């Protein structure tokens, strides 16, 4: 045993010289961090990491896309655009709303108690506002789709009901597309709270770009969709550049390590890449589809990257 031999040496040194000059035995894991103002308490994290699993960032993506699709659908309906885009937008909104609920319930520690979310309404809790918004959005977008399909297949006078539901779905859809930014922004996690007033806009652009891209992949080629896609991708490029250039120590998880890399991949795929494809692609269908796929992937990766960065930020919060 190396430890025993070293101890013998130390004892001999002590006997012969009366003192021990050399260091003793290095304990496993040494040197241990000290409790100091700079290190904090032995370098241990002060904050708790977010406990959310994959369902939450997946919900940010799906719910955001559904919300933005509802808005696009109503805008298309008002402008008198072709009926197919209105129907497909309602499909995306309704399907997104239907997928969102199980995602959120699945992440709960006690899924069987999901109805407790609707036990109270608390305006100071973005989670509470979100739960009520999703309940309203899910119902309204399902109703708008149901009315649309009924209108097509029967003679029932459901157009007005469908439009009213679509309007409610779009109104709550704007909240769906933005509130998740408030949800993570208004927390104690430094990388999130530092960007509390950027995240809602960032997520709104991400939601719009994914909704537009999904409609494009379903075969719609309206110039309006292209214009919205360009606007969203341009804003995402701007947000990406801002993250790179601004925000001190708190923003480090957004630029360094695994979370920083993920943020960058998401940013490239939802910002400059589809923007260039849309601007330079001309009338090429392939360029348009590539831009749509890139936007969707970028939007999804971006949400996972922000949650990942939140975990890293809680582990290494600046003192």
């Amino acid at each position, binding site marked *: 045993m190396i430890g025993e031999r070293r101890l013998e040496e130390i004892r001999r040194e002590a006997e012969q010289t009366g003192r021990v000059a050399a260091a003793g035995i290095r304990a496993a894991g040494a040197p241990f961090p000290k*409790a100091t103002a700079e290190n904090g308490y032995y370098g241990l994290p002060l904050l708790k990491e977010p406990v959310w699993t994959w369902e939450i960032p997946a919900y940010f993506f799906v719910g955001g896309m559904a919300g933005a699709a509802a808005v696009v659908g109503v805008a298309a309906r008002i402008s008198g655009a072709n009926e197919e885009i209105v129907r497909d937008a309602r499909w995306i909104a309704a399907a997104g709303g239907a997928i969102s609920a199980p995602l959120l319930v699945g992440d709960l520690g006690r899924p069987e108690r999901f109805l407790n979310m609707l036990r109270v309404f608390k305006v*100071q809790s973005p989670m509470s506002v979100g739960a009520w918004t999703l309940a309203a959005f899910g119902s309204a977008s399902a109703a708008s789709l149901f009315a649309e399909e009924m209108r097509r297949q029967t003679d029932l006078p459901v157009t007005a009901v469908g439009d009213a539901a679509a309007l409610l779905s779009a109104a709550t859809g704007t909240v769906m597309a933005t509130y998740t930014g408030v949800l993570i922004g208004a927390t104690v996690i430094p990388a999130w709270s530092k960007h509390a007033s950027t995240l809602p806009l960032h997520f709104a652009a991400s939601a719009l770009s994914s909704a537009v891209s999904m409609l494009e992949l379903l075969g719609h080629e309206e110039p309006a969709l292209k214009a919205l896609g360009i606007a969203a991708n341009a804003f995402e490029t701007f947000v990406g550049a801002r993250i790179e250039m601004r925000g001190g120590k708190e923003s480090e998880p957004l630029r360094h390590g695994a979370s920083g890399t993920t943020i960058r991949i998401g940013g490239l795929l939802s910002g400059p890449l589809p923007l260039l494809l849309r601007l330079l692609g001309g009338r090429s269908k392939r360029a348009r589809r590539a831009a749509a796929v890139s936007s969707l992937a970028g939007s999804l990766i971006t949400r996972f990257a922000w949650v990942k960065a939140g975990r890293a930020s809680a582990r290494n919060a600046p003192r």
Partner: protein
Amino acid sequence: MQRQEERVSTTGFFTDSTLCIGCKACEVACKEWNDVPEDGYAWSGLSYDNTLALGHSTWRHVKFVEREAEIGKGGNDPHHLTWEFSSDVCKHCEVAGCLESCPTGSIIRTEFGGVFVQPDICNGCGYCVVACPFGVIDRRPHDGRAFKCTFCYDRQKAGLVPACAKACPTESILFGDLEEMQRVADRRIAQLHGAGMADAKIYNPTDTSVGGIHAFFLIRGDERAYNLPPRPEVPTALLQSSWTAAAAGAAALVVGSLLAFALGGRK
């Protein structure tokens, strides 16, 4: 109508680290009384602390702060470290991040001024975890609900002192009327300063958005060495700016979509 306003005083903890001997009786008493499950038997190598932090299954936590001696300030022998013990606990904030953020209304303010998680209502959404500036509350794996110090709500209801304060052999943990505790703390700090312990101070962030805490501490030196944040802020302080941005984003979505289709919807 009969007027029956029972005046219940607001209570508080005053934990004095200069009296703590690191016996961890508070940790044990808390676990015993509240039936808190074990939280691992790992050896940390960090002084005598193997619990490391407050969490879902650690509601009292004794910190062992080892520091270089500073002659005249702490320790008399430059070759030996000083050893400070401090029993940490949920701060029961005046404005509590966990309580504000809880979407189910599970987390409430009790009549004693404490912050209490109702275990029959919590559905384990995890939002309180990212709303606590002190990193106290956490979701318990397998159970699924969030847990933290209850301020021994059940004992207080019965007129008893919380288990940790009852068990503390040195009266390092004092419990009582909040204002009385503050007076005790003021007297103690004056006494220590008079005795030359210049780095002794009270940790109670009254000048931040937390607005003060119901469990405050007497510590020595920089609070960061104890993992206590110098300026804890409640996340609700960010709501206004964040919702304003959300409103701007929502408006941009609506106006942008309407414009895009009005100008280019019909080919």
